[in-house]
């Protein structure tokens, strides 16, 4: 009788190799990012103080604080959200509730938004410079920068709102139709309140992206370090400030580290909020059903 020789655990060695390589890779990523954060804390923390947040920019950024920068950043963010939220949610509502899925117009709009999502941020910068700053005559201003960023985060908002609307319970729409509710009532009194958590998560992610953007702002909101007095003033965003200190200012790295630490903290805060919100929402949904 011929028996096949039983090979002893043929892939034991391979298994161990994959496990080790995987663990190494995971550790390496942890380590590298830990290093990055540690460096920013080490270099940036000593300069952090109340006067850093409240002071004017001095000596091209080598001294003083970042108060005007923070104000400009907030201004840019406000303009960005002011345009992007109505436009993005409106577009998503239209795609999901008001137009037949798969119709020519729906596809055209959806692919336009998808195309926009793939545009590099520096190209948004070029566009914003020509269109908002020059053609519309807004100049290098907080408004120009904010509107440019709005175009940039628009696809993200459309996508997340659309997902939120599409993942609503399927029997909500027939229930509303059975009561003879108009589309407007159904959408604004039923669907939007129910989809709000998803929309808020999308907006939070959008805020994160807008805060971290630099390239699109270089030629739209400008470099001015003065305290802005209106949306039509030029104002330097926090990310642009870091870039300028790192590239153009000799001995600017200490202040750049502090600014980077502040920006990183802001972003991590915003993004953890998004993660926490979505987990909270998921848990509530799964316990409700």
């Amino acid at each position, binding site marked *: 009788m011929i028996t096949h020789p039983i090979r002893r655990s043929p892939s034991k060695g391979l298994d161990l190799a994959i496990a080790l390589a995987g663990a190494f890779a995971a550790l390496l990523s942890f380590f590298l990012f830990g290093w990055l954060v540690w460096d920013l804390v080490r270099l940036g923390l000593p300069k952090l103080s109340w006067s850093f947040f409240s002071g004017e920019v001095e000596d091209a950024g080598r001294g003083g604080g970042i108060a005007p920068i923070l104000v400009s950043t907030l201004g840019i963010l406000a303009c960005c959200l002011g345009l992007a939220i109505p436009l993005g949610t409106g577009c998503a509502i239209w795609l999901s509730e008001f137009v037949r899925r798969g119709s020519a117009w729906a596809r055209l709009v959806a692919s336009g938004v998808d195309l926009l999502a793939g545009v590099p941020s520096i190209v948004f910068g070029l566009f914003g410079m020509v269109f908002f700053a020059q053609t519309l005559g807004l100049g290098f201003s907080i408004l120009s920068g904010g509107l440019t960023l709005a175009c940039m985060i628009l696809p993200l908002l459309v996508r997340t709102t659309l997902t939120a609307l599409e993942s609503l*319970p399927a029997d909500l729409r027939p229930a509303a*139709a*059975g009561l*003879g509710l108009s589309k407007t009532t159904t959408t604004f009194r039923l669907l939007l309140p*129910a989809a709000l958590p998803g929309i808020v998560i999308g907006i939070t992610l959008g805020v994160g992206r807008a805060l971290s953007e630099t390239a699109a702002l270089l030629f739209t909101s400008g470099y001015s370090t003065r305290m802005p007095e209106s949306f039509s003033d030029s104002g330097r965003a926090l990310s642009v400030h870091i870039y300028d200190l790192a590239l153009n200012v000799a001995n600017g790295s200490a202040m750049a580290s502090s600014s980077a630490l502040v920006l990183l903290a802001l972003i991590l805060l915003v993004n953890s909020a998004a993660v926490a919100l979505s987990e909270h929402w998921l848990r509530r949904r799964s316990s*409700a059903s």
Partner: protein
Amino acid sequence: MNAAALHISGLSVSYRDLTALREVDLAIPEGQITALIGPSGCGKSSFLHALNRLTDLVPGCRVSGSIRLADGTEVTDPQTDVLALRRRVGIVFQRPNPFPQSIRRNFEIPLKEHGWAKSDIPDRIETVLREVGLWKEISDRLHQNASTLSGGQQQRLCLARALALEPEVILFDEPCSALDPLASGVVEDLILSLREKVTVVIVTHHLAQARRIADHAAVFWTRDGAGTLVEQGPAERVFSSPQDPDAILYLNGARG
């Protein structure tokens, strides 16, 4: 025989290439309970949803033929105001589907939409909640989310919500099949209590239930790949001496 609340003639429903229902003629008597029975997939639900144009929500669904309300309004006419129609012909679905908002909002949204004065709304809510026997149970928590109610309570809420709009006809799409026997009995009693007040059309798989509550019965069956009506008449007659061979077997529990 009472006047017909709904007069249906030559009604066909199709989804893209698939014919779900072919050439149905039926008169729904006013103030009575009409049960639609038959095996799954024989077009009962398509028929029911055509009656208040919920078929509009299904992409690719086409309805032909005529459905007339008592006052002569043609349901299938594209010019007919579908929102007003759905106020007059309400529906309660298989699975309870309260809006995930407060119990009060569940009434306020449709009542406001159909023009009730704000000051009348609280009274209206109380009246219909009493009608479905929920008032005592939930009158102190109208502000709570409707999804915190039990399944049976939710279904009664949905019935109350439909009743609030003072419809002439209420359609029930297997209203008890998602409920436990106890809750199912409560809802069944409620449907019985509607007799004479509104016209009821109910789709049910539950033959014993149909036997208990129906004044009028209609048996649907699949013929040549499409659902059609094979037997109709007063419930007693249909159940005791059906004519159609398939209906005989089905009602005796041998098929379907």
